[in-house]
């Protein structure tokens, strides 16, 4: 008797346990009865009931889910091989349809691989690399020194017609059409990483290096040019300053000489007598200034000096 009670009690507990189930905030549930879906999806959380032993529940995520693509090396329209890494965000929109089409998340991920990777490949192949990299046609900011040096090199960003965001939208739209009947809502596709493949990378590095070299050269020659210009300025300035000083000095001297000449002339040139007196005085002064111990004085007896002597002798 006691064993029977025990058995019945146990059975009751098990049955009750299989009649009750909990739906989490993060879940939605489909109830099937012998494999056939019963009622709509249960998407409110809490304690729920079902017919024990007959009905089965299937849990699905209600949250936004992630999808990570593999890194793929894809050629762009301009034949550049780039490594593209995409991610997408999706959710199970219609759990029943989802359950029927892909059964579970693993199935969904693999379908998404096909769809999103495929659409990405198409989109990349239809566009030049620049379209995938750039989003807008904004003008680059340039710091002045770099700009000067680069104006001869490459400072401009190439124009785009569509751009990254638009291409993303195209991929999303195309993929959305294909995920609709899987019970999946695709909300976003993003390029997580875009990088050059190894082969291309080497070329890009070489290009960057030669570009930098050109900028360096430009800086150097600019420096030398600037230096030469300053030194040239200096040379011109020195010449100007010195010659102006010379000119002014000579003008001053000239004026002074002229003035002195005028003064002398005014004094000496009053009359023939003053002229003769000046000549005489000046001659005497010159004598005084020139005769010294090394001088030979050859005095003619006919000269003035002896004339006085003769005169006095004769007189």
């Amino acid at each position, binding site marked *: 008797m006691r064993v029977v009670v025990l058995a019945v009690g146990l059975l009751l507990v098990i049955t009750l346990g299989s009649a009750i189930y909990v739906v989490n905030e993060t879940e939605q549930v489909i109830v099937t009865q012998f494999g056939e879906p019963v009622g709509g999806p249960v998407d409110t959380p809490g304690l729920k009931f079902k017919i024990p032993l007959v009905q089965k529940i299937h849990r699905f995520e209600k949250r936004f889910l992630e999808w990570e693509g593999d890194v793929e090396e894809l050629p762009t329209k301009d034949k550049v091989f780039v490594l593209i890494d995409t991610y997408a965000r999706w959710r199970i929109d219609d759990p029943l349809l989802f359950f029927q089409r892909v059964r579970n998340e693993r199935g969904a991920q693999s379908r998404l691989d096909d769809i999103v990777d495929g659409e990405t490949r198409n989109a990349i192949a239809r566009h030049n690399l620049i379209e995938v990299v750039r989003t807008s046609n904004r003008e*680059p900011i340039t710091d002045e020194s*770099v700009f000067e040096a680069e104006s001869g090199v490459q400072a401009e960003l190439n124009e785009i017609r569509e751009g990254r965001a638009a291409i993303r939208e195209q991929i999303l739209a195309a993929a959305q059409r294909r995920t609709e009947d899987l019970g999946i809502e695709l909300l976003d596709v993003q390029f997580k990483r875009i990088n050059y493949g190894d082969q291309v990378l080497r070329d890009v590095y070489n290009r*960057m290096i030669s570009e930098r070299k050109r900028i360096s050269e430009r800086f*150097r020659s600019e420096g030398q040019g600037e230096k030469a210009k300053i030194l040239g300025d200096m040379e011109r300035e*020195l010449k100007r300053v010195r010659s102006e000083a010379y000119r002014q000095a000579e003008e001053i001297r000239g004026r002074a000489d002229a*003035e*002195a000449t005028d003064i*002398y002339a005014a004094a000496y040139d009053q009359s023939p007598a003053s002229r003769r007196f000046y*000549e005489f005085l000046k001659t005497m002064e010159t004598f005084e200034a020139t005769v010294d111990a090394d001088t030979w004085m050859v005095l003619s007896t006919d000269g003035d000096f*002896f004339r006085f002597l003769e005169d006095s002798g004769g007189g």
Partner: protein
Amino acid sequence: MAFGGGKKPTVVNFPEMPDLPKVPVGRIRAALIALVVVAVALSSVFTVEPEEEALVLRFGEYQRTLQPGLHFKLPFGIERAQKVPVQRQLKQEFGFRTVKAGVRSQFSTSGYEDESNMLTGDLNAAVVQWVVQYRVVDSYKFLFRVRHVEDTFGDMAEAIMRTVVGDRTVNEVLTVGRQEIEDLVKVQLQELADQYETGIRVDQVVLQNVTPPEPVKPSFNEVNQAEQERERLINEAQSEYNRAVPRAEGEARQTIQQAEGYAINRTNRARGDAARFLALYESYRKAPEVTRTRIYLETMETILPRAGKKVVVDDDLEGLLPLLDLTGRSAAPPPSPQGGGGGE
């Protein structure tokens, strides 16, 4: 699970008790009751730490959010609490990881190149390392709207950073555009985080090392050096200019002053000479002959004693020069007396 486990032993053990007559029944019952009480207490009381917030779920359904302090919930997993550190600032690093944080933190960058390598808008490559600091502001969304929310957030941050960097030249990324990139990434990341319903608020996006790729670095350094060199050359030339020109200006002023001095000297002397001459001439006019003779003789008186050799020749004498030993002596004077004699 705690619910079933707690109930079952009491149901199973109770009827078996009579089969164990030796054991004191009262004590076991008391012990069991005590155990149950403790279990209830342990599974219903919990604390929420100061930086946290707790979300209570009853049978998986969200009930309430609790702030820091001591709290109660229904026991045995009927209610469960999930804690979210809403006050703590969280951080994700891209392109590097902090190995050991401290005064001198250690970082590791190897193995994270995939995160940091990116393309710039001029199709160059750059290495960008950055940090995103964020906080959970809506813990309900954070827990229940997005699965693997932090991984998703990391993916978002990478996508946005590359979008922004992809629209800039490598120069902007490396130099002038840093601040702008940080600001723009923050804004765009926040938009995306809201759109994805992550419940995250982006506090700050901080660029760390932003460099050219390793193989290109030397040539970038060369550009810097060349720029320095340009500055140096210009400075040198400028300093040479500054050394020479002001000095030349000074010298020019000196030249002019000297000329001024000459001018003053010249005119003063002229005036002085003129004044003396005029004075003398004035007296001379009164007795010209005598004055003339006097001056002539006075001059002779001064100069004749000074002259080293004096030769007196008769006017009729010819061929005098061969007789004079002029060798070793200056022969300049001979014309002088003629000049002196010639002047009337």
